[in-house]
């Protein structure tokens, strides 16, 4: 037995595949200098790359004055949000941290990656010198909450339903706590700003537009002509105008539809505008997903006795939505970035804060630092979304045809 195994192993050794590695020079020749014009391209690219990297490096590490960021850090994060009430923002972050921790504990995988990322970001902010002592304390607490949620999750009964419900309730809760609505002293939305405002607008727009988009897509394929043509008209009109006009319309027109005396604030109007805008695109994505499902699926669902809504809920929609995860996330990322347009209608989101800071005479000529910083912020968040989506696609790919 033992000797047998040995011979097997030696046999295996003898038939190992030949080494495919080309060595350094081989690799260079194959990938960079395979012929004369590729060689020229390589040399030009290397020179350009050298100057770009050198320029960026010397700016970032030598000539840039990053104090413009550190001194205005709170502005970038929450805008003019009343300083004494800042604990509310931290509490909202705490809720989100808990939900991230719970999700990581329940679903592992992508949720765990995102929780680690969140914790790392919090940790970085804790370690940099310019955050205040209270902020460091809150940041520490939040990291603790993520970890706590992670280990707590397995002990909660029905933890999946509770966590999902928690995610949905976290929106109204956040809005309620940030505003106060009289239970706490009211913090007017015109002082909400910075990253906080950017995230609020985009999250609300993305999450609320999703069900509306599904309804519009279903409406568009409906047999009832009124529903059908309403949905088509809505989708085509919205897709035909730029987002900025939707924002202006939301600012100017929504008040016209409301009864005298009732007033919806700025931020809410922008949220409505962004939601209605995104919904039209979501609808088209969903419709594309629905069309990608072979008709045999619908027939099989009917043949086993499911009625129309059941077939849609159990068979068609889950497959359609899975197929369009990349499109939905793409839409979400572009919505997230497009919220920067609200600066034009007078809100001070991340971009609005950047402009405010630059125009402050104390920080004259610091626009490069400011724009680089907010670009980095946008990138980190947008990239996390696309990373999460790719992981989700992979893990949901199980059992696909």
């Amino acid at each position, binding site marked *: 037995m033992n000797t047998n195994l040995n011979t097997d192993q030696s046999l295996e050794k003898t038939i190992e595949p030949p080494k495919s590695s080309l060595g350094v020079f081989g690799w260079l020749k194959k990938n960079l200098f395979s012929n004369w014009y590729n060689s020229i391209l390589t040399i030009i690219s290397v020179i350009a790359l050298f100057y770009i990297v050198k320029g960026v490096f010397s700016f970032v590490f030598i000539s840039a004055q990053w104090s413009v960021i550190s001194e205005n850090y709170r502005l970038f994060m929450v805008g003019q949000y009343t300083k004494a009430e800042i604990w509310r923002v931290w509490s909202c972050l705490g809720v989100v941290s808990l939900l991230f921790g719970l999700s990581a504990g329940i679903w592992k995988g992508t949720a765990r990656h995102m929780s680690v990322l969140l914790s790392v970001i919090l940790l970085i902010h804790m370690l940099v010198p310019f955050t205040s002592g209270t902020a460091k304390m809150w940041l520490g607490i939040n990291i603790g909450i993520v970890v706590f949620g992670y280990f707590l999750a397995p002990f909660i009964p029905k933890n999946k339903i509770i966590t999902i419900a928690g995610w949905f309730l976290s929106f109204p809760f956040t809005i309620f706590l940030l505003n106060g609505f009289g239970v706490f002293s009211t913090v007017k939305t015109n002082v909400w700003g910075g990253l906080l405002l950017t995230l609020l607008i985009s999250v609300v727009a993305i999450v609320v537009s999703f069900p509306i988009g599904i309804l519009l897509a279903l409406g568009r394929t409906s047999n009832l002509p009124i529903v059908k043509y309403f949905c088509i008209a809505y989708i085509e009109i919205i897709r035909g105008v730029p987002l900025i006009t939707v924002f202006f319309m939301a600012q100017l027109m929504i008040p016209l539809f409301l009864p005298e005396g009732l007033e919806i604030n700025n931020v809410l109007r922008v949220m409505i505008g962004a939601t209605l805008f995104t919904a039209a695109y979501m609808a088209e994505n969903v419709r594309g997903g629905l069309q990608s499902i*072979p008709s*045999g*699926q619908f*027939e*099989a*669902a*009917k*043949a*086993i*006795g*499911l*009625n129309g809504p*059941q077939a849609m809920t*159990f*068979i068609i929609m*889950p*497959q359609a939505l*899975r197929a369009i995860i990349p499109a939905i996330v793409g839409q979400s990322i572009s919505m997230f970035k497009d919220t920067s347009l609200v600066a034009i209608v007078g809100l001070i989101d991340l971009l609005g804060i950047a402009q405010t800071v630059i125009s402050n005479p104390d920080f004259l000529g610091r626009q490069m630092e400011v724009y680089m910083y907010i670009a980095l912020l946008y990138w980190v968040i947008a990239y996390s979304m696309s990373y999460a989506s790719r992981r989700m696609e992979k893990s949901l790919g*199980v*059992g*696909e*045809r």
Partner: protein
Amino acid sequence: MAEANIAKEEGKEIIVCNGVNKWFGDLHVLKDVSLTVKKGEVLVILGPSGSGKSTFIRTINGLEEVQKGDIVIDGINLSHDIKDIEAIRKETGMVFQQFNLFPHMTILKNITLAPIWVRKKPKAEAEKIALELLERVGIPEQADKYPGQLSGGQQQRVAIARALAMQPEIMLFDEPTSALDPEMIKEVLDVMKELARSGMTMLCVTHEMGFAREVADRIVLFDEGEIIETGTPEELFDNPKHDRTKLFLSQIL
């Protein structure tokens, strides 16, 4: 026991089609098709490509609407009323050429979905029945896999189990083995033969002549949307009356 049951109901006309006509646009696909199937009968439908076999079998469970004529299934008239169509779909199971399993659900979920949501069975009971059916079609160990992880023959057997889970009176098969590799055809045909012996009423569109000869009580030959000839396998294969039947058989045998 099952046989006693069948004997009692033997002779009951479970499918009655009377002057069925169907058009796709201007294309007249079914022309005055009349056919009666008795309970427990196994009917094989033959015919050249494009002759309307699939269209006909799909009218039986309302997947295709007919423009003229009557179809009565187990006493229910297949009108345009959605309630009737849904009632009939509970009584008929269908197996497709392309299996049409739900790729995002496990095998067990595929089978239990309709019993739970349409027949309102408790989950535990539905799962018990599903496992028994998987046993019956010979793949009890695959319950937790996804359709994409199964071979074609296994998928088609799951599709049969899924249809049976609704405890239908009638099973419709539309070329169930045409998408399968030769070595998998037998395993599906064996399941179908077992089903036929158990007394199920079956309508099969198939090109498997061996199966038709062995299992069919009656064979129906379609051509250009019409029934050309019906008869027992012996009558039809050994002593065809109609010229077009002879032509078809000479091409296929």
